[in-house]
């Protein structure tokens, strides 16, 4: 049974990694904690569910899997609009206003989801069912979960490569290290910030799209992932990619084994571990 718990832990970690990576990029580059991140995730879930339902069962399976990318693209566009219309006025404002603005954006987005898709649940399990199950030792495990891990791995490698090897990525890191100096060097902060916000939002949307074949999309879908994403960011350290990875694994495994061993206090247990880490190492595992 333990191998299944381990795989489940990896699966939770994969999703959390995508969410917290997005949070972390936005936080690192723009210095803004996006409270609406969970709603962007929910937006991605609804877009993908709607796509899958609209496509129906007639289309070849690979198109269904490609349609999951609609979460990434769709929420990327939402992120673009959000940054252009609201977030960009917040760079010079103090923390209170930044947080409250994203809190207002959260409320707006939740109701926009309600306006577009109504209050009912959206089931879109076709991609999950089609992949079937694999035998692992003496147990069977849904192949789709392995697919999600693979996607998260690819996304993680892509972001790592992008941030450390490409010019654009290096410019983004320069902004997160020293915004003023980066401006002084002539970087186009406005456009780069927009780009970072779109990238972070898109990752949240992708995570939402990947989840929707396993659980129906509901209103208030993004609240729990947002909190777990916060824990990952706090435990891993603000603005650190390595921290996001290690934090996701920690939270993922705690959840998976917590659900198996103490189902009632799985979430409090998680907070307890996070609390202990923070008392011992206040800046988080990989914080600066």
């Amino acid at each position, binding site marked *: 049974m333990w191998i299944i718990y381990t795989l489940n832990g990896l699966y939770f970690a994969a999703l959390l990694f995508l969410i917290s990576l997005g949070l972390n990029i936005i936080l690192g580059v723009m210095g803004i904690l996006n409270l609406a991140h969970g709603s962007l995730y929910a937006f991605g879930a609804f877009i993908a569910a709607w796509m899958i339902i609209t496509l129906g069962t007639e289309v070849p399976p690979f198109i269904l899997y490609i349609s999951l990318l609609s979460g990434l693209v769709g929420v990327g566009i939402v992120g673009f609009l959000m940054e252009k219309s609201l977030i960009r006025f917040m760079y010079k404002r103090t923390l209170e206003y930044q947080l409250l603005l994203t809190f207002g954006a959260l409320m707006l987005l939740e109701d*926009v989801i309600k306006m577009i898709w109504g209050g009912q649940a959206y089931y879109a399990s076709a991609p999950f069912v089609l992949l079937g199950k694999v035998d692992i030792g003496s147990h069977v495990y849904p192949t789709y979960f392995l697919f999600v891990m693979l996607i998260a791995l690819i996304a993680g490698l892509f972001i790592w490569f992008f941030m450390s090897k490409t010019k654009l990525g290096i410019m983004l890191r320069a902004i997160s290290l020293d915004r003023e100096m980066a401006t002084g060097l002539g970087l186009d902060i406005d456009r780069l910030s927009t780009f970072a916000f779109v990238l972070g939002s898109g990752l949240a949307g992708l995570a939402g799209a990947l989840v929707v074949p396993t659980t129906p999309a509901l209103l208030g879908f993004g609240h729990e992932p947002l909190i777990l994403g916060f824990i990952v960011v706090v435990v891993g350290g603000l603005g650190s990619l390595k921290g996001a990875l290690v934090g996701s694994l920690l939270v993922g495994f705690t959840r998976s084994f917590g659900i198996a061993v103490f189902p009632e206090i799985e979430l*409090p247990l998680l907070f307890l571990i996070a*609390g202990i880490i923070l008392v011992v190492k206040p800046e988080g595992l990989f914080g600066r």
Partner: protein
Amino acid sequence: MSKNPRWIVYLLIFIVLLFIPRILSIHDLMLFEYGITFAIVGLGFNLLLGYTGLLSFGHGAYFAAGAYTVAMIGKYFPQAYSLEILIPAALFFSMVLSIIFGFVCVRHTKIFFSILALSLSMLLFALLFKLYHITGGSDGLRVPLPNLFGMSFKGIRRPEFLSGTYYYFLLGMFTVSFLVMKGIVGSPFGKALQAIRDNEVRAELIGIRVRRYRLYAFVISGMFVGLGGALWTFVNGHVTADLSHWVFSGEIVYMTLLGGFGIFEGPIIGAMIFTYLKLYAMGNTQYWMFVIGGTLIVLVLLLPNGVAGAFSTLWSKIKKSD
């Protein structure tokens, strides 16, 4: 004190407040009582935000601590279910909780502080939600009418209770909270908090023990919010785990900003406006979050000092032009 026109205004407002139950209908009076409880919450919250410069997105936890103290005593120790026991108990438990959580939070400032406060409140939420055989989980707990100094309100319906004795009890608690907070803010301790807010390093250099003072501010503010929570339960008649959810904490931040956190009376005004705004938005459209969220965004972009701040700017402009 008598020379200061501000105190005369306070006194006039207090006198008007005494006659409120005769003026308002029972429905509006209940709303007004919600507003008063949130005004106490706002006063406490603003000690941390406006005076110490720490933004907590988790003060719902202390509200829930106060509210659940009342509900749990009502369920498990009905013989002790009397206001003169309930209020100190609520203060005590919200103090204990804010000492524990505050100890972890005040080691940090800025975003880190906000996220930590938020996460810890969600810990309480998770506990209240999961331990449903004790706390009622998502169904919550019903709150019966309490006794007061041996007076029993059995057989009286809630609206009558709320428009009579309880309104004056609430008004008394609000007045005490107001005066105590006014005292705290004006005391050397309050000035020290403001020094920490304005410049932490300097405050430390002149010998203020920054972290300890932050913890004191955190605990005092937690107790005020807990008191507000306890008083709120009797008006609402029901408590649920959602009180500790961070979205509820967000509403506390919202009303403080709505009134203006740079001004002592701001959060009180904000609490009143927010209560009415939320009710009318909820009553008139199913998209009330859209209305509230949109208002918040407009507020952040156009009225950063809140309603009270806008009025005080306007007032000083009028004075100048004279």
